[in-house]
């Protein structure tokens, strides 16, 4: 504890520096005077006495220095001194300071923005109690590489009740509601959750109470709901009296029992369900199939669990696997002979996998990890280029401050002390840049979020929290050290005499500075070229994706979703409503075609259905599940997909008539080869004895369904009028002009038919396709931006080096010109060394890009990661920019007038 006392004493001394100095002075003065008096008493004259006392006492400077160092915190005192001095220097050259701070703000800001996204997507934990104890329960099956997350309700019950490794096991399933309150109806996201949901997560109520296991006992008998804080704020304006009142969810009255605490958004970082209801209410909100809660075949919910604190994840996994396997065997026993031996084996081979659940279900993380990490690499490279550039700038400045340094060295400054002071200056610049960079980071971050898919961008929270600010601080300091180190070391090596003479001599000792500056140019070029190449590749890839033949006409299609089933419509009524709406819409003059589909193109999801095909004998394990969609008449006209053969559905293809189906080219080729498929029959009934009940009436061109990168897929369309059950469908309206204008007209027509029916997820097909290219657009945009920034920085650095070299060699150039050197000779002389650096930098840059190409291969579409055209284009661009950057200052050298030059200095 003694060091603490001493530190406290020193700290006190640090803050009372002046007082301390004065005290010591007075004390020492008193001592001398007492000595003098003593001498006078001994009989010396006052003057002699004082003189003798002084002599005896000796020099006091050492004592004072000693006192100062021992009595305070000399490290801090020197630091303050250096900071004051640095601030004075920076104030004296505002232009220089502004350039450096802005460059750093861009570099550090960009890194911080990407880091804030990484923080939000890859590092942020769920805001619940002890998130590190949570696990996501998944299972691995033989057929798929990635673990699946969806479980049946009976399996959830078994895991909840029998697993010994957990303190609690929760289940949840996403759902959407038509929420009505006070006569207003809107679409709201929600979740069906197990009764222990909030308990397991450790979430507290903000108002009222949250769900408990008692709210989740009897199917259909718990009409209660909990609102999220955000939804309560937005929809109910934070009115506390809502607790205890009833709202209509899908026409079912539900009592609001509470509001969960602010900040809690659920178990998926990118989602924020508004309303949670007990899973016992599944029958009401997900009525089909009606045996959902009992069926072991229907996997529709996801599971998280809280480990007991003393049980590791591997041990918990083993324990859960035992229960899982046991349950599977029991279930198979229950299913009896309806499962063949092959399937049985496959089912029993599935294994439980527990993943860390501290971030919840991290779908966004899986999707964004690679692009984010690549982007982080890119911004780090840009920052390095910026550092090299600033180091160059500082070198030039340090050459100017040569004399100041010489004077300081001459009067006895230690070089370590000088390095420290210079580093203080550059770190200060780094911090100023970082502080300014916060603004840029905020701006860029906000922009970046818009590049995320719309479903995420509205709910993802990207805070500039302590971790991000910590990153910013560390990045600022490291940057400051990085770009300040070379100039600082350079300074400390200067020799006093050379510096005092100035820097004009021909064979100056500054040659080393010169080559260091060229090394920095080399570095910048070497780092910029891979960035430019990457930008070129991404640009190329994005252009390929944009230009992909989608098989449909993407312009002028308005999309919207409608879910009358939620309002308790029967399938018959839904069919009627859809039909009426289409008739009304087709009557509008702006509308070319209108239709409904169960699966909207390039929306990222699609249904699949097993089929049996006339005359086709599948092999064991053959994939017999092509894509399937339910469509209304007019679907192909709305999307502009041409028919190869046959006809579209008509209103006559209804429930009472022959079931009909339309297939695409791939389907036709796969199952029928070159034979004419029209009139052939298929069935979706998996009972092999059932008749093939659907007749093929048309073949359409292949198109893209789920995403733009996919290979052609087999696909078939069934008629909406013949489907036994209808759920939410997407409305597609082809318009004559800009489709965004039609939204209000469509909404008015829907309102006319049923005022309680909300139209949601309105968009256009073009926007939907653009959304599917989110990470591609993000990468292209950022890599282009940073590629250009890096190239500009490199060329500014290059320009600076040449200008500097011209300036310091003016006299030499003058002599050479006087002796007969031509403009070309002079030009060659000033640029040759730098040109060499640029050439070497480009060679290394190409090699680096080639080495990194493996990382990029998976992110590109129909362009090789080593595409020679992109490499050539980037190299050419960089070479031209570099030549220009070199030429402008070098031209000045050719205009040197020998007479003026020889008088220089």
């Amino acid at each position, binding site marked *: 504890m003694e060091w603490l006392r001493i530190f406290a004493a*020193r700290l006190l001394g640090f803050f009372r520096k002046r007082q301390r100095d004065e005290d010591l002075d007075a004390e020492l003065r008193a001592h001398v005077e007492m000595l003098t008096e003593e001498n006078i008493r001994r009989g010396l004259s006052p003057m002699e006495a004082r003189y003798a006392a002084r002599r005896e006492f000796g020099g006091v400077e050492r004592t004072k220095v000693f*006192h100062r160092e*021992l009595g305070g915190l000399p490290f801090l005192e020197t630091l303050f001194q250096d900071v004051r001095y640095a601030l004075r220097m920076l104030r004296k050259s505002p232009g220089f300071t502004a350039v450096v701070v802005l460059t750093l703000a861009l570099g550090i800001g960009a890194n911080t923005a990407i880091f804030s996204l990484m923080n939000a997507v890859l590092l942020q934990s769920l805001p619940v109690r002890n998130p590190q104890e949570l696990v996501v329960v998944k299972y691995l099956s033989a057929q798929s590489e990635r673990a699946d997350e969806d479980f049946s309700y009976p399996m959830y019950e078994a895991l909840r009740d029998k697993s010994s490794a957990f303190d609690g096991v929760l289940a949840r399933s996403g759902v959407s509601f038509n929420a009505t309150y006070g006569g207003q109806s809107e679409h709201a996201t929600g979740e069906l959750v197990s009764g222990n949901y909030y308990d397991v997560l450790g979430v507290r109520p903000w108002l009222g109470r949250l769900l408990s296991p008692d709210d989740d006992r009897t199917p259909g008998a718990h009409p209660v709901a909990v609102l999220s804080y955000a939804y309560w704020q937005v929809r109910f304006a934070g009115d506390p009296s809502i607790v205890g009142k009833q709202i209509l969810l899908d026409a079912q009255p539900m009592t609001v029992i509470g509001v969960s605490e602010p900040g809690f958004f659920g178990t998926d970082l990118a989602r924020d369900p508004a309303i949670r209801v007990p899973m016992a209410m599944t029958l009401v909100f997900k009525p089909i199939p009606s045996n959902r809660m009992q069926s072991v075949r229907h996997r529709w919910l996801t599971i998280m669990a809280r480990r007991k604190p003393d049980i590791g994840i591997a041990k918990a996994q083993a324990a859960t696997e035992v229960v899982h396997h046991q349950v599977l065997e029991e279930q198979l026993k229950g299913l009896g002979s309806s499962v063949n031996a092959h399937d049985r084996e496959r089912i029993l081979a599935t294994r439980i996998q527990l993943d860390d659940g501290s971030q919840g279900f991290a779908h966004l993380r899986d999707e964004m990890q690679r692009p984010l990490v690549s982007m982080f690499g890119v911004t780090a490279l840009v920052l390095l280029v910026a550092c090299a550039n600033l180091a160059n700038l500082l070198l030039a400045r340090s050459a100017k401050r040569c004399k100041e340094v010489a004077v300081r060295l001459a009067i006895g400054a230690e070089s370590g002390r000088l390095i420290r002071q210079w580093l203080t200056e550059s770190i200060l610049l780094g911090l100023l840049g970082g502080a300014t960079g916060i603004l840029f980071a905020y701006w860029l971050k906000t922009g970046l979020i818009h590049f995320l898919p719309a479903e995420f961008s509205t709910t993802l929270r990207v805070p500039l929290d302590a971790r991000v600010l910590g990153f910013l601080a560390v990045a600022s300091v490291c940057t400051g050290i990085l770009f300040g180190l070379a100039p600082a070391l350079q300074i400390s090596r200067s020799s006093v005499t050379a510096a005092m003479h100035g820097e004009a001599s021909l064979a100056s000792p500054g040659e080393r500075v010169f080559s260091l500056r060229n090394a920095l140019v080399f570095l910048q070029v070497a780092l910029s070229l891979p960035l430019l190449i990457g930008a070129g590749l991404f640009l190329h890839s994005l252009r390929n994706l944009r230009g992909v033949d989608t098989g449909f006409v993407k312009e002028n299609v308005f999309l919207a979703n409608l879910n009358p089933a939620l309002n308790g419509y029967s399938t018959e009524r839904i069919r009627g409503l859809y039909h009426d709406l289409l008739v009304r819409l087709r009557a509008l003059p702006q509308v070319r075609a209108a239709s409904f589909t169960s699966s909207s193109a390039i929306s990222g999801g699609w249904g699949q259905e097993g089929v049996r095909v006339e005359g086709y004998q599948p092999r064991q394990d053959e994939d017999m599940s092509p894509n399937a969609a339910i469509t209304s008449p007019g679907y192909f006209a709305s999307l502009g997909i041409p028919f190869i053969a046959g006809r579209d559905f008509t209103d006559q293809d209804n429930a009472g008539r022959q079931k009909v189906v339309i297939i695409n080219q791939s389907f036709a080729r796969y199952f029928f080869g070159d034979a004419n498929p029209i009139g052939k029959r298929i069935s979706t009934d998996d009972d092999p004895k059932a008749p093939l009940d659907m007749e093929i009436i048309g073949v359409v061109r292949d198109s893209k369904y789920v995403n733009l990168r996919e290979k052609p897929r087999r696909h078939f369309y069934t008629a909406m009028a013949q489907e036994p059950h209808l759920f939410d469908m997407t409305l597609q309206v082809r318009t004559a002009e800009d489709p965004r204008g039609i939204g209000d007209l469509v909404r008015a027509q829907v309102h006319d038919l049923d005022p309680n029916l909300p139209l949601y997820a309105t968009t256009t097909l073009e926007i939907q396709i653009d959304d599917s290219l989110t990470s591609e657009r993000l990468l292209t945009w950022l890599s282009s931006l940073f590629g250009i920034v890096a190239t500009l920085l490199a060329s500014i650095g290059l320009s600076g080096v040449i200008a500097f070299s011209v300036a310091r060699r003016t006299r030499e150039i003058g002599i050479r010109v006087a002796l007969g050197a031509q403009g070309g000779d002079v030009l060659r002389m000033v640029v040759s060394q730098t040109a060499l650096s640029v050439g070497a930098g480009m060679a290394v840059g190409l090699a680096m890009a080639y080495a990194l190409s493996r990382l990029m291969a998976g992110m590109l579409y129909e362009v090789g990661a080593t595409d020679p055209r992109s490499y050539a284009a980037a190299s050419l661009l960089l070479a031209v920019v570099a030549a220009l950057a070199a030429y402008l200052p070098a031209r000045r050298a050719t205009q040197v007038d020998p007479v003026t030059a020889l008088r220089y200095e």
Partner: protein
Amino acid sequence: MAPPRGEVLQGTLDLIVLQTLHAMGPLHGYGIAQRVKQVSEDLLKLNQGTLYPALLRLEQRGWISSKWGASENNRKAKFYSLTRAGRKQLLAETESWERMTALMERLLGGTEGV
């Protein structure tokens, strides 16, 4: 190598200052130097460059405290006095010093005996 006469043996300075303050009560720097000179009969001169840093160090450790006061001649001077912790420290250091000197005596006595 024996230290030259009049120089302070490493580590004994603290003990000397503490003991002086213990014997004399509150004293200023000059007084301490004078007292040491007297007691050692001019053999030991505490130079200000040694004395004042030592006083600062002892004060930071909390063994002595200081207060401005008036000297015999009514001059403003800083008076140092022993604190309770200082008294304890003095006791401990005296003990260890005595152990040390006893040990040295025995050792040196032993060599004489050979």
